[in-house]
């Protein structure tokens, strides 16, 4: 399981998991689940187009996902945010299907772009993936404080000179880059799961932001490692395991939070605030 080809798989998946854990923390914080779903789908079209014209898939991924990030940031201001994003997603997917239909490897290519082909990552691809990964993590750590501020209290941050529009664009570009390096490994449809499940689960276990981010990375790593191992042993696609383990960790997190809340509530009367809408 740990021989040559598999080594690439372990390494690339680990890098993806670390980046996904870090970036995902903010995605969940900012409630950008929809955008996190949209960008990879845009990237899909890019990869398909690149495949068509014989260019490196990563280039196509990068171009399209960054374009998508800028489009969403721009459109979101005007039209209804969710409708605009949804339509962009779908058009990108449609384009992707078009490009692929013009290649000869239609179905298997679609499958691996959408659901990942971790075993197909070659040594030459490892370097760019790692490089982009480092850039993403570095960027997040660099803008950590203003991004936190702007995500949690956008108006106050604005008054302090942190423009929410700029933060949004910067963040979405980082997500786009994350997508670029992650899609060849875990696929466009499932990078989304890796971005939000570990971060969402981490939130249930701790309230401290940096701890949550760290926990998110750990959970993401655990998820991909288990997925690779299980996929290797059972010969079933890795995407299946990523999705299921992601859902399971989230459920576990929610269960833990509920159990802990109930345990705390029974000995003495709850002092939590009233539900909104009920208070006079």
């Amino acid at each position: 399981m740990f021989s040559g080809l598999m080594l690439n798989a372990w390494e690339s998946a680990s890098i993806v998991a670390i980046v996904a854990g870090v970036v995902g923390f903010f995605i969940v914080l900012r409630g950008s689940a929809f955008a996190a779903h949209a960008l990879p789908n845009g990237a899909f079209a890019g990869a398909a187009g690149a495949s068509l014209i014989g260019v490196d898939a990563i280039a196509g991924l990068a171009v399209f996902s960054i374009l998508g990030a800028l489009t969403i940031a721009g459109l979101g201001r005007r039209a209804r945010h969710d409708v605009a994003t949804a339509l962009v997603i779908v058009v990108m997917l449609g384009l992707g299907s078009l490009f692929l239909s013009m290649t000869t490897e239609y179905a298997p290519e679609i499958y691996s772009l959408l659901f990942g082909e971790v075993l197909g990552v070659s040594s030459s691809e490892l370097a760019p993936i790692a490089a982009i990964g480092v850039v993403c993590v570095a960027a997040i750590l660099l803008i950590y404080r203003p991004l936190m501020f702007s995500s949690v209290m956008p108006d106050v941050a604005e008054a302090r000179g942190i423009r929410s529009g700029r933060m949004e664009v910067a963040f979405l570009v980082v997500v786009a880059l994350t997508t670029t390096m992650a899609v060849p490994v875990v696929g466009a449809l499932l990078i989304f799961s890796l971005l939000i499940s570990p971060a969402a689960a981490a939130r249930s276990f701790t309230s401290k932001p940096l701890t949550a981010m760290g926990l998110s990375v750990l959970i993401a790593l655990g998820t991909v490692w288990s997925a690779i191992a299980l996929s290797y042993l059972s010969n079933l696609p890795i995407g299946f395991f990523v999705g299921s383990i992601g859902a399971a960790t989230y459920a576990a997190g929610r269960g833990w939070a509920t159990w802990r809340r109930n345990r705390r509530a029974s000995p003495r009367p709850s002092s939590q605030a009233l539900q909104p809408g009920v208070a006079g």
Partner: protein
Amino acid sequence: MQADSATEPAEVLAVDGVSVTLSGREILRDVTFHIHAGEFTGLIGSNGAGKTTLLRVILGLITPSAGTVRVESESRRRPLIGYVPQRITLDPDMPLRARDLVGLGIDGQRFGLPWPSSARHRLIDEMLESVDATRFAESRVGNLSGGEQQRILIAHALISRPRLLLLDEPLANLDIGSEQEVVALLSRIAKQQRIAVLISTHDMNPLLPVMDRIVYVANGRIATGTTDEVVSSESLTKLYGVHVDVIHVHDRILVVAGRRDAPLQHGGGESIVEVV
């Protein structure tokens, strides 16, 4: 319950001994008051005092842990109460004209497709006329100003001919001009159509000219009566449990807490400087 004499207005709402406990906290305790047809009642209290809870109990959205609510001396039947909620964010994209929103007040809860009829059309026109909204009847609800939306919501609530009209903070976010218009409109409706109006608000001053009675909420308890009876230093001190001063400045009332930490202010805005 019903009119004893020809001049005694009918009782529309009877709240008796209502208590509400939510999430282990007692929000309201032993609330009792009665409202009659044509009366304009102000439900006054600061935010968090329990006004919205009380309104929701009256509407039947919350079950009280004790006490009863009776509308028109029968068990609560919803078409009898017209409700204007506090905050409706209407999307500018929503395909709904002002007159459509008003029309929903007639039969919006019924299944099936609405049958267009000239009678319905006429009724909506009349209602729009009575709240002075004919001008923007064809506009999208999402494009209306705060005051215009308010009037449409009032029309919506009134079109089913309720006996009781309930408004939750209708004056918040309105400019002074619109505020006065809405108060005048509601007072006119109360008198002309013999409808009981109950307005919940944290600022009683805009209502002073038209209020018949007041239900003042503090600490989960209420004091009810005319404005003079309730809004006095002794009465409110008893209600709040701390010393309270009632200050009259020109025709505005300020309620200010005595010694203790931060001044508890009701009435004319956030500071005493704002005097008409």
